[in-house]
């Protein structure tokens, strides 16, 4: 089982969108993919056609001391997902306090989900450092950092690198962290410049394909579908498909 963490330094960069669409592309290539939503926004399930009224999620199951098994849903798009759950403020605070005291909580629950060596679990996180990110980074085999090509994102790179160093670098089961550029618009010189700078700084660690800014991605969420089903000919879908192939190579190295 390979665990991929999708993190981002700032909110609104499209991390959840990227996670879901990447998962769906990899499922298309034959992988068994599971998505785990660790973001209190609880938005991941909406990309996959879940019923907005359903409040179930991993928080409720954890607070009730029961297994995640009961909150794993299948989607019509080849991936299964575990939502965060619609929680009240009290429940959220209790949950986060519990997490702070139980650093192995995520590791144990993931282990419970199964030992399929070819399986893939992609975990979505809230932006910035948080107790969720701590736990996810402690067990991830691969980390994808989603950024948009603006100066603000670039400025947060040192902070992210610090997080990665602290939680991941020393682990033997960590196979690398990569940056993915989202919402790239070649028309704007700033986008092109930031991309160039990131290429020079990161080299191989910047994913070779940037995801173009594309309304189809947002519209797909409105239709509660992954973009490849909603707008199969859009550029962002092609970018994500190419990213999926690239990621597949990385995952294959982990499995060995």
């Amino acid at each position, binding site marked *: 089982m390979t665990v991929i963490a999708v993190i981002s330094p700032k909110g609104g960069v499209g991390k959840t969108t990227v996670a879901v669409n990447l998962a769906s592309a990899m499922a298309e290539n034959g992988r068994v993919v599971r998505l785990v939503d660790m973001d209190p926004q609880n938005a991941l399930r909406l990309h996959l056609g879940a019923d907005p009224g359903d409040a179930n999620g991993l928080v409720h199951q954890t607070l009730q001391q029961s297994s995640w098994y009961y909150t794993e849903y299948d989607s019509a798009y080849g991936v299964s997902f575990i939502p965060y759950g619609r929680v009240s403020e009290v429940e959220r605070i209790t949950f986060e306090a519990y997490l702070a005291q139980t650093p192995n909580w995520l590791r144990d629950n993931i282990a419970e989900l199964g030992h399929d060596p070819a399986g893939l679990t992609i975990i979505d996180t809230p932006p910035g450092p948080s107790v969720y990110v701590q736990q996810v980074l402690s067990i991830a085999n691969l980390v994808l950092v989603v950024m948009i090509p603006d100066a603000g994102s670039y400025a947060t790179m040192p902070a992210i690198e610090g997080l990665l160093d602290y939680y991941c670098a020393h682990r033997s089961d960590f196979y690398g962290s990569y940056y993915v550029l989202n919402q790239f618009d070649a028309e704007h010189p700033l986008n092109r410049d930031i991309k160039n700078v990131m290429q020079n700084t990161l080299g191989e660690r910047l994913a070779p394909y940037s995801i173009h800014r594309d309304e189809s991605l947002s519209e797909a969420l409105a239709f509660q579908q992954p973009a490849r089903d909603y707008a199969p000919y859009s*550029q962002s879908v092609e970018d994500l498909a190419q990213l999926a192939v690239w990621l597949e190579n990385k995952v294959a190295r982990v499995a060995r």
Partner: protein
Amino acid sequence: MSSAPSDNNPVNPAGEQREDRRSRLRGQSRYKFGKLNEYATAILEWHGWEHNYWRIAVILVVLVLFVFSMSVPMSLAFQSVYAAILFAISMFIRRYTGTLFTLVMVVFSVGQSSRYLYWRMTETLVLDNWVDGTFGIILLLAEIYAWMVLLLGYVQTIWPLKRKPEPMPEDTALWPSVDIYITTYDEPLRVVSPTVLAALAIDWPRDRLNIYLLDDGRREEFREFAESVGITHLTRDNNFHAKAGNINAALAKTSGEYVAIFDCDHIPARSFLQMTMGWFLRDQKLGMIQTPHHFLSPDPFERNLGTFRRVPNEGELFYGLIQDGNDLWNATFFCGSCAVIRRSILLDIGGVAVETVTEDAHTALKMHRMGYTTAYISIPQAAGLATESLSAHVGQRIRWARGMAQIFRVDNPLFGKGLSLMQRLCYSNAMLHFFYGLPRVIFLTAPLSYLFFQAHIINAEALLIAAYAIPHLAHANLTNSRMQGTHRHSFWAELYESTLAWYILRPTLVALIDPKFGKFNVTAKGGLIEKEFLDWQIGAPYLIMLGLNIAGLLTGFVRLFWWNSFEAQTVILNIIWTVYNLVLLGATMAVATEAKQVRANHRVNCNQKAMLKLNSGSRVVCRASDYSEGGLGLTMPDAGMVSLHSEVRVSLFMGVREFVFPARVVFARDTEVGVEFEGLSLQQQMDLVQCTLARADAWLDWTDNRVVDRPMRGLQEILFHSMKGFQHLWHHLLTRVSTTLPQGAEDKKPGKDVFYHTLSKKMTGAGQQETMMHRLNGFVQKGRAVLLKSGDSLRARLARGRA
């Protein structure tokens, strides 16, 4: 690469082989199989060649054998059998690749053609009466010319060098400085600006690249443009010696070690310098490297006959084969554009030659005389516009023919110091080629001398003529098809020559007598033909010859049945020849019918990744299928995604870099979308040229749609175009006649014009052409089956050979 590098294999065999290959450049083996290959290589590498007396002995033996085979008299039966055997051998070995077999076919062809000529000279001339004698000698002289050109052609192209580009050294500090000259006289800015923008995109260290716009028109618009893009605008206060003078004046004002010269409409690829400069660093005596002139628009033949990219065009024999063959003998000559010249050597010979109007070939000749070398790389690295109309094309060829005749007269390559034997022969062939005007006109009218005047120009019975002439023609066709097949289809040379023959006749003869006579005409580029018309002015000489030949045909039938039925075979032979001439002249008419040009900007096919950003903000994946100066053709899954006249953003990619261009949708149907760019900034124009015309791989697929040559197929193609030519002629004659008639007559027969118009419209479809080809093919096959009634195995063998 065959295997991935591994620790157990430290020696790199590919690296070792590279050194060997470089040192064996000229002796490079070009075929990879067969015992015969080994024997041939053994012969080539035999140590005995180093001793002069062995060489002389072998040459003497070959000469004796040659003279013997040429002159030994044979009876009709013997000659026929001899010819049939050699022909059968040729047909058999032509299925195998390899220069050795080509050599064998060349030897056979030379033997048969020389035999024919010898027989003609010794046994078929009638000198006792002046009618027969005059016409006979005229025809014989034309045939001697054709024989010389045939032999020289074989020698020139027997082993195309196919030189590979030499890589530049890794350290860019060693790369020399290059000046790029873009010469212009009166062409509009919109033709010149893509060339300038592409030159700006050439991959070369910025500090060692200087671009100069050599403007002989001294136009303000060009000066402003040059300033806005950051290049130098050079002018001079006179226009002496046209382009040669322009370049020489610029040489005095610039200082790059090398000079790359481009015509104003030849757009260079970004890899131009990297592909060519390597050889200069390797060979210090190298004076010039030439690359092909590739056309992104059809020339008059291709446009009017509809054969663009399906049949190789006229220039391709030269740029695809002849220059490559020249390269082996170090006889490549400068063609005026798409070349790089070493400044020191150019100055050494006194600058670009100004004594003749083909200053380019003369410059290379001077270089060779002083012992410098030239090179040719047959990879197209630039593309330009072909001549727009037949009249412009003729004007250009007249200039070339005149210039070559001038050089022949003023600086004859056969004499004078400094050239090797092979260089002399190659240059002579290049110049002799342009004298085809008179021989071609003679061939087109020769049978008339019998049909009108009963002059026996070939005094022999028809079967004997057939026994000598048919092997001569057949072997020549077969061998040329094998050597040139990918660069020129069989029988098309007849068409090209026939179309231009009359016009280059006078200039060459005049230039031969007095080289100073005649002025330099520049060919204008970039005009638009609004509707189809038959160029009566250009076609006039051919109409006359056509008329004469038709009259000759009718006279022939009269002679056959009444006046000369005693020598029916001779009459029939002359009639067949006349019919062949009519076919050629008909095809000439098709070329003279200028097809309508739909758009002013030429479309170039491509297949590139592209992206369209719609108004809604979605970005759609698509592919660019063709581009032109103002727009782009795209293929997308559903053209319904875009609405007509909407504004979009088109992205083109160069590697991983993306360039965005504002555009407007002008066409959308099924999966095809056409966009036009509007309001591009200068930087965007440059980016667009970089992404499209200046790509390093822009022209590498120029042979993709090529149809492989087979001699019969070439003949069918010419027949097809000839029939279309007659049809055009008939239609346009009718139009002319009907417009001079009073209105009433026109009203009476509206249907006829419409009928012919729709017929010509139908016939232009490629599908109709295919049907016609099938019909012709069927006819030819039936004829062949009739001839081969004897021997099923022979028929089967030929069928296999044809497949």
